[in-house]
């Protein structure tokens, strides 16, 4: 049954191992889900979620084509974002329960140096310039790191609401750039360089603005006195 749907260019080894790897992945997922069903405490369930994510990776990788490899990458990133978000939710819920002066990012020392207020301009500038030079997903992460450093270390409170809206709008426009670049790849393949740069710069703006937004929201939510 399986043999009829496999394309001819999949190596014979992968298609011969497909059933084994698929059942192995399903068994691992089953074990992980049993563990989740038996646990009561939230942090333990979060750790076991990791296991189900690994099983998902096996099931996707068992296909053995380039597309399956390309599908593993967003799966991993989404799993990472999910675990990050849920762990923050658990921590902040516990902080609300305790309701005393616990800081969100505990520091061993009270750092009050001049360099913390003057240097971030320079560091953020360098990081953003380097991120723009890199472009793409990596460049977006580097530039976003620069924005986060700027936002978190400078103690400027109360960013006007239209700045937040503007960052969101940049994110949306860059998403459109990315989609336009992708469509150009298929409709006008001779302009591949243009579409490549549209996609890369769109992704740069998208990731940088998203990471910057996370930094702004963290400061607004937890830096409040």
């Amino acid at each position, binding site marked *: 049954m399986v043999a009829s749907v496999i394309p001819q260019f999949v190596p014979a*080894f*992968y298609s011969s*191992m497909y059933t*084994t*790897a698929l059942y*192995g992945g399903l*068994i*691992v997922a089953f*074990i*992980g889900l*049993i*563990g989740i069903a*038996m646990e009561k*405490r939230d*942090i*333990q369930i*979060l*750790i*076991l979620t*990791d*296991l189900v994510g*690994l*099983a998902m*990776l*096996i099931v996707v*990788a*068992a296909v*053995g084509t380039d597309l*399956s*490899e390309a599908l*593993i*990458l967003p799966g*991993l*990133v989404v*799993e*990472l974002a999910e*675990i*990050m978000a849920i*762990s923050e939710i*658990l*921590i902040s819920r*516990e*902080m609300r*329960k*305790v309701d005393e002066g*616990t800081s969100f990012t505990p520091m061993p020392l009270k750092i009050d140096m001049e360099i913390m207020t003057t240097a971030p301009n320079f560091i953020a500038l360098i990081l953003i310039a380097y991120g723009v030079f890199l472009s793409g997903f990596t460049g977006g992460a580097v530039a976003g790191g620069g924005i986060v450093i700027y936002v978190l270390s400078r103690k400027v409170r109360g960013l006007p609401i239209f700045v937040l809206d503007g960052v969101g709008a940049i994110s949306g426009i860059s998403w459109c750039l990315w989609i336009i670049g992708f469509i150009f790849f298929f409709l006008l393949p001779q302009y591949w360089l243009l579409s490549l740069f549209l996609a890369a710069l769109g992704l740069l703006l998208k990731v940088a603005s998203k990471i910057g937004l996370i930094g702004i929201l963290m400061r607004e939510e937890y830096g409040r006195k």
Partner: protein
Amino acid sequence: MFNLAIWVYLGLALTLFGSLATVWGPGVKDPVIRTINTEVASVGVSLILLTYNSTLALLTLIATTIIVTLILFRAISRLEEMGADV
């Protein structure tokens, strides 16, 4: 010289063993031990990805595994610090 099937089976066995160790292994009431046990399963998945020639996926898996472990350790230590039931 290389029988590729051996590595897939080894990876599957490691993943299975690691997941069993994570769910029912000794001392998993402690969340730190449970987190470290998931590493065994992730090494098994790395072997499978290596056999399937998925270089990018393998590199991303290694990077995200490290970050996930750091996030989980931070969450565990913060929750224990605040005296939550972990």
